[in-house]
């Protein structure tokens, strides 16, 4: 860390400018934030992003629709299937395409599993951020089980390229149902174990309760979505407010916090994992055999027009603004990444916080730099 001295107008205090990142391990990627500190308090924070900018949106304009899906895998690299789903739904909406039921069910099951895997990663890493070493071992153990299942289904642990416009690449493997049952057994116990291990730990509460609060109005003003918005007491979930795919066929609860502080943001995610498991169980019950791909021409050519599709990714409202000129390549793809908007609120959250809490607050909004920088 480099420290510079900067005298201010008041003669008696000195603001220190502290640079954090871009290679700081607690910034969850390459993210840099400059802090102005007065004693132990943060006066001002200025985030700098763009270290991971690959021009994904521009790259999409040069690829076929089927190739764009691979680029979406690499946006939010811990919830790949949710990103793929958002893009495919956008194209399907433009083409007014009917999706076979079985394909929709498989999509929902895998996306909810991906949500649990993503929250498990958050759980482990957040433990590290607050100074607890053990949770990462438990969080990664569960996440690894889910990724092993993904590998049997899609052939890849992370960059799946499994969801296609009009359905899926192929059907589930034959032994999916018993494997899924086994995984659910593990996950149910795993989530409870994780909850017992960290949530009510006295030191963890002392580090997170009342830290970095944000009100519901402020959160909406900043465009904060997902668990961070719900923790602030706003009931907003795209799966409820604008149901996409087949989410209107399931019964599930939306956890909502009270104070919008770090602990609320943490616990909303733990509760969301339980709700996701309930969705998966319902979907497994309702799912029936059938085709997984709709009748489609080999090359996707959506009609001329534009559409905005939003889905609930583990981090919040993941939107895709797709403009098509009727050719086989998209004319413009704009990704509204939830982490990008959530990260804007950081300046607000950091104001008047202690320096020691900076990492705790940053960890609680759970950013993925892949989708922030695109």
């Amino acid at each position: 860390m480099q420290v510079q001295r900067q005298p201010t107008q008041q003669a008696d205090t000195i603001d220190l400018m502290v640079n954090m990142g871009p290679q700081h391990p607690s910034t969850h990627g390459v993210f840099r934030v400059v802090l102005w500190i007065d004693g132990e308090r943060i006066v001002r924070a200025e985030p700098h992003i763009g270290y991971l900018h690959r021009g994904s949106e521009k790259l999409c304009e040069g690829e076929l629709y089927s190739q764009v899906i691979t680029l979406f895998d690499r946006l939010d690299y811990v919830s790949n299937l949710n990103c793929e789903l958002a893009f495919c739904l956008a194209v399907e909406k433009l083409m007014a395409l009917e999706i076979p039921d079985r394909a929709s069910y498989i999509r929902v099951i895998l996306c909810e599993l991906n949500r649990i895997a993503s929250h498990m990663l958050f759980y482990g890493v957040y433990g590290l951020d607050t100074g607890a070493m053990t949770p990462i071992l438990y969080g990664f153990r569960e996440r690894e089980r889910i990724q092993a299942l993904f590998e049997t289904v899609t052939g890849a642990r992370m960059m799946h390229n499994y969801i296609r416009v009009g359905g899926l690449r192929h059907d589930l493997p034959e032994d999916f149902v018993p494997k899924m049952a086994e995984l659910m057994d593990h996950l149910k116990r795993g989530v409870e174990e994780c909850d017992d291990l960290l949530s009510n730990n006295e030191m963890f509460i002392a580090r997170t309760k009342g830290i970095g609060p944000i009100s519901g109005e402020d959160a909406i003003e900043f465009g904060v979505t997902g668990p961070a918005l719900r923790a602030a007491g706003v009931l907003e979930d795209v799966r409820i407010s604008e149901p996409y795919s087949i989410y209107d066929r399931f019964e599930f609860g939306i956890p909502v916090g009270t104070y919008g502080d770090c602990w609320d943001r943490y616990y909303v995610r733990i509760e969301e994992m339980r709700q996701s498991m309930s969705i998966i169980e319902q979907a497994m019950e309702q799912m029936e055999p059938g085709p997984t791909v709709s009748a489609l021409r080999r090359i996707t050519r959506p009609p001329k027009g534009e559409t905005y599709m939003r889905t609930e990714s583990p981090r919040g409202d993941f939107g895709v603004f797709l403009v098509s000129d009727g050719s086989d390549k998209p004319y413009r793809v704009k990704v509204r990444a939830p982490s990008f908007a959530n990260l804007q609120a950081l300046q607000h959250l950091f104001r008047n916080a202690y320096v020691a809490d900076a990492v705790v607050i940053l960890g609680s909004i759970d950013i993925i730099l892949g989708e922030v920088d695109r």
Partner: protein
Amino acid sequence: MAQPQKPQRRREPEIPVAPVALDKKGDALLALLPEVFEAFDVEFGAAVDEVVVTAKPQDVPAICRLAKEDPRLDLTYLRCLSVVDYEERLEVSYHLFSLDKRHKMVLKASVPPDEPFVPSIVSIWRGADWFEREGHDLFGVVFQGHPNLAPLLLYEGFEGFPGRRSFPFHEYNEY
């Protein structure tokens, strides 16, 4: 003697246009809008499932404020702010959503690419800050009144606007 064959003319296939499919809330909103935006020079339309309002760039902040504060619209949440380059014009789209009423609207404003000036809406939604900086970064749209239009995704001193269609990006050949 074989007759000379006529050269077959390949006809360009007609490009279909995505049909408009507004839901009930969209229809209700479309019926309500002319009354709310009486004072402005705007056009109303629809794209697939969203109500589209096309306005003059200088009216954007006033319309945004009205959309946010009018209880009939209650569009409190700015979902997305995006710039699309249509070569002869740059189009700025504001996707708005009402968290209570659950209806949605798109506000659009077009500017010429050599004079891309749009008033900023940071004073209405603070969340527009980075979206506008990104639009300035990648497309060169100048959001007037924005407190800090420094590069966000690109590095200091980058020349050109990589989001625009005229910016070359496939400079290599695939073999």
